[in-house]
């Protein structure tokens, strides 16, 4: 099995899906010859041609609206937003149309598109290039929101997202893109949407995260274990909406303690939703109040101060200990 980083794993997923199904198309800014600014679509245009790997004009609303039309007419567009911070012009198309066309046409027209976009901090990028606004997508009825945390999941989840009959927002933690390599099977596989995964077992508390913060949480759990400060379970949410309550909240019910970790501004973030779910479905099993580790309700700081905004291992450990010591 080849060891791939997340960029390569996603590229491979795209290659394989385009090979398998010629209604799959890739479009966005610089996805062609340039192979995408992160090289995620590298090699696609050479292999599938400019009709299926489309460099679009610079217009995000159009990229998504065009994709909706192409999807209605039988294609499976995988639209790239160059950075999640530039996806907001597409928000209207997603809320007003992608998430409703099936309903509005009583099932006649459907929108099996994927909107892929790199998100999150940690790479010392420019303003607007480090945002974590997944909450706004997860709130929209009629669309699904998926976030892989490692190369293996990225490939399997993206394949499932492309095959899904409904619109999927696919957030890619850009900090993970080249940070790790792991074995990724050459053959095509799907990881079902809507399923979280326990990535580390433990009985003392549950750390809940997605995207890049899964690694932070795993590292925190390992360190705590090594230091004999507790055995902490780590759950990778993987799909924000539809949310896998059984797995995520199930773990909290088991351990009785939870810390939810994300890079979002906390107010009305996806961490809020998980806290609400814990309140509704695990409170009677709690041994301590669930806690959150998040960014701040401020614009994401520029590179120099970015580290103070992002959760890190120390912070996660500190908050987990508070939970354990409660």
């Amino acid at each position, binding site marked *: 099995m080849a060891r791939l980083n997340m960029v390569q794993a996603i590229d491979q997923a795209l290659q394989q899906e385009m090979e398998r199904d010629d209604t799959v198309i890739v479009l966005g800014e610089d996805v062609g010859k340039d192979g995408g600014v992160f090289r995620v679509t590298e090699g696609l245009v050479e292999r599938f041609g400019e*009709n299926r790997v489309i460099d*679009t*004009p610079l*217009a995000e*609303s*159009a990229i*998504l*609206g*065009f*994709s*909706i*039309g*192409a*999807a*209605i*007419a*039988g*294609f499976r*567009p995988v639209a790239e937003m160059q950075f999640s911070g530039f996806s907001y*012009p597409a928000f*209207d*198309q997603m809320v*007003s*149309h992608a998430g409703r066309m*099936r*309903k*509005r*046409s*009583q*099932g*006649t*027209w*459907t929108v099996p598109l994927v909107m892929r976009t790199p998100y999150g901090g940690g790479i010392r990028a420019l303003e607007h290039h480090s945002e974590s606004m997944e909450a706004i997508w997860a709130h929209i*009825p*009629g669309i*699904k929101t998926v976030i892989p945390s490692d190369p293996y999941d990225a490939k399997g989840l993206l394949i499932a997202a492309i095959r899904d*009959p*409904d619109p999927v927002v696919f957030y890619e933690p850009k900090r993970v893109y080249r940070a790790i390599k792991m074995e990724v099977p050459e053959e095509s596989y799907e990881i079902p949407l*809507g399923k979280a995964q326990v990535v580390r077992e433990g009985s003392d508390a549950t750390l809940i995260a997605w995207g890049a913060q899964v690694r932070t949480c795993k590292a925190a759990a390992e360190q705590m274990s090594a230091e004999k400060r507790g055995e902490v379970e780590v759950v990778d949410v993987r799909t924000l*909406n*539809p*949310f896998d*309550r*059984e797995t995520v909240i199930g773990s909290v019910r088991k351990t009785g303690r939870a810390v939810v970790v994300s890079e979002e501004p906390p107010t009305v973030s996806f961490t809020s939703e998980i806290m609400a779910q814990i309140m509704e479905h695990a409170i009677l099993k709690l041994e301590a109040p669930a806690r959150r580790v998040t960014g701040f309700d401020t614009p994401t700081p520029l590179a120099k101060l970015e580290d103070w905004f992002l959760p890190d291992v120390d912070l996660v450990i500190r908050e987990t200990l508070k939970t354990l010591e409660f």
Partner: protein
Amino acid sequence: MPVTTLAQFSIERVEVMDHQGNVDESLMPDLSEEQIRHLYEMMVLTRQFDDRMLKLQRQGRLGTFARVMGQEAAHIGTTYALEKGKDWLIPAFRETGAFILWGTPLEDILAVNAGDERGQKIGEGVRVLPVSIPIATHLLHATGIAWAMKQKGEDAVALTVFGDGATSEGDFSEAMNFGGVFKLPVIFLCQNNQWAISVPYHKQTAATTVAQKAIAYGMPGVQVDGNDIFAVYRVAKEAADRARSGGGPTLIEAHTYRLSDHTTSDDARRYRTAEDLDPWLEKDPIPRLARYMEKQGMLDEDGVVQVREQATQKVADAVKAFEELEPADPERIFDNVFAERTPNLEEQLRWLKFRTGEGR
């Protein structure tokens, strides 16, 4: 060296039939008597249906809706230039006549306007999208659909319709640009009815014509007398032929007028004078076509009555069917959100059942 001219453009207006129903034979499109009669019937039916909807709305049986009075020729004439079953129609919300022309059951239109989602189903084999309310957003869908047709090698055309107000939205510009760059088989039809609710055309744009906006996207743009069904049909047919043969998109400005209030929630007297409205009453596209047909011996007074009565009957039947519709089941709320209900939606459906009394 110094000041050189890089490009020159001119914008034309096409008219075929004058108000008295006289046509310029050199421009008259190739339409049979039967076809012309069909167009006339469709316009009359649309007008009567529109009138009836207003009454139903006033009685509280329908919700807010947008009348089409005065704009029948603009969208019926254009849609008629397409092939139903093959071409695509991507409408806004003021194209009732186009839906009717392509066979959407009138009772479905009533149902939607009564707030019953069942009316939104799409007829078998009809390539029409549902009404799109967010202004200009659907033009982008038309570009994607047109691209898909081209990619599949179907020589189908996508017609998308919108108002003068829509040209101010960013999505209009992005869609036009995609149309131009990818040379898509799409027709952008602007029903320039001079008003966007209370905002008159000259406050919407400083461009003298909508048609000239095509220049910004390297595509042909043309203005047509939108109350002249022959002219409208002619330019639409030309645009469709060009699109089919790989010539790319066209922007058509159908110069017309909204004779009614904006919607049934609106009162145009607040912002619009009789001086503005009155001249347009005389340009009504329906009597204009009737005058042509009378002159050509295609229609007499009896014929007029007959067409009117047929329409009345169709509308009456539709209202009856609409009234006989059983109330919709609340559980439908959870249908067609996704292909399959998620566990979350299943749970919320249980809450609903509890509320409707079906749970427990």
